């Protein structure tokens, strides 16, 4: 039987492929560094350090081991808070979507909590948990968990009733339907939630390190910012940016791997 060539193609590859994209991105990076260098040469009083000075500061911080220590502290806070947010947020959001009456009852309160700036809770958290890693991880958790809950919830609500009916007709149990139909269908929402959660979690890591016991990258940021050591300060900013890029790119790769069915070409 002839295959129809008119069925909608679902390819969403960037034109030119991965290699072109890498070259374009590197080119853009070079442009940014050029602008940075121009700024550093023209802004008075050394407020903006030059790329060379920043690189040297980075090497210095690394050889002293300060960067590694701070990075380790920050990643411990960030990782703990984010993993806890995933472990709580996905099941809770899924439960809200699956048990309608539960979801309808609590979603209003989750929305209210999500709209309250989480910084408002910091004094309370410090009173309850002190200034250590527990308090910091909770601040990260509170920021990251909201988008994860809300997006999982939306993804489960958007489930395909026809597919679920098909699954029921095969005698599939509710658990089998959840694992094979509902959760994979919610994946695009889930990834958005995780990406937002990861970003807010990183912001809150810095906030927590500024407001509680001053440690980690956030601590160094405050230290160098307040003492006008701008080259070191820039190193910390760039380190934070790199964590953000690595985490969101990692999520994107996982998503691409899990949604090959959308982008695959006909064999």
């Amino acid at each position, binding site marked *: *039987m*002839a*295959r*129809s060539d008119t*069925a909608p193609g*679902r390819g969403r590859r960037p034109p030119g492929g991965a290699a072109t994209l890498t070259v374009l991105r590197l080119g853009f990076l070079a442009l940014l560094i050029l602008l940075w260098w121009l700024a550093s040469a023209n802004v008075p009083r050394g407020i903006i350090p030059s790329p060379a000075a920043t690189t040297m500061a980075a090497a210095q911080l690394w050889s002293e081991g300060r960067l590694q220590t701070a990075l380790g502290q920050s990643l411990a806070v960030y990782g703990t808070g984010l993993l806890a947010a995933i472990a709580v947020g996905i099941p809770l959001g899924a439960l809200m979507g699956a048990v309608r009456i539960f979801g309808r009852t609590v979603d209003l309160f989750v929305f209210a909590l999500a709209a309250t700036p989480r910084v408002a809770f910091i004094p309370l958290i410090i009173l309850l948990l002190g200034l250590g890693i527990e308090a910091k991880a909770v601040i990260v958790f509170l920021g990251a968990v909201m988008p994860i809950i809300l997006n999982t919830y939306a993804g489960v609500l958007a489930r395909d009733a*026809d*597919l679920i*009916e*098909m*699954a*029921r*007709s*095969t*005698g*599939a*149990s509710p658990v*089998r339907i959840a694992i*094979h*139909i509902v959760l*994979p*269908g919610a*994946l695009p929402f889930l990834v958005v939630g995780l990406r937002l959660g990861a970003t807010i979690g990183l912001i809150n890591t810095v906030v927590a390190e500024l407001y509680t016991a001053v440690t980690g990258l956030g601590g160094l940021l405050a230290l160098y910012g307040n003492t006008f050591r701008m080259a070191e300060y820039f190193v910390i900013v760039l380190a934070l940016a790199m964590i953000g890029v690595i985490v969101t790119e990692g999520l994107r790769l996982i998503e691409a791997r*899990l*949604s*090959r*069915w*959308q982008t*695959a*070409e*006909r*064999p």
Partner: protein
Amino acid sequence: MIPAHVLLSGVSRGFGTAKAPTLALSQVSLAVARGEVVVLLGPSGCGKTTLLRLVAGLIRPDAGGVTVDGQPPQPGDGTAMVFQSFRLIPWKTARDNVAFALPRLGRAEARERAEHYLSLVGLSRFAKSWPAQLSGGMRQRLALARALAAEPTLLLMDEPFASLDAQSRELMQIELMRLMAARPATVLFVTHSVDEALILADRIVLMSPRPGRIAEEIAVPFPRPRWNHDTRALPDYALLRRHLWERLRDMVLNDPASDFHGRG
């Protein structure tokens, strides 16, 4: 008398709100014997899909009773359904779509069974393709393989060949009849096509819309197997075909909700 495999007695089912209710089925009674092929024929909206969903145990009647093997139907319990729109799982390969419909088998066994039924519908080469990579006709065959793989004793088919081209459609009809001869099952088959109904059915149930009712039941007397001779050449074929066609035409022309109302 042999107890019926599928029995509907005085079944009514509505949809919608109290203000704007739709009576999809009204007072429908039907008995289907084990191994019988019953084709439901009728214009759009006469409740054919609703009837299949009731028999599958996916919805319950508002009034009356539905039994399969004397029991209220349980989804998946010896019953498989081919849906009007394929309802394939987009993130599963062809093979895993079929294997998914076999929740009672182990993983390896389900995959093996899936591959067997994929080859039966000519999709072996596409076992590892996703539905988005398949043509419309291939998707339909995949949906058919998924239902057959469950090796059901009751097969519910909702316009399963509607999106096939004429040749494929005829080949699939023959293939279905061969499969049913090899592994007998009771079949409830929905179609809009008078010819398809006459080729496949032991009995045709003609339904009329608004509310959905059974208008007429017609035994189809053609000898089986029907694939090794041209059933259409039989003199009764033209007679039955004409009768069914006229009944359907009258239903559509006399239905105030039809787009063709009063054009006779």
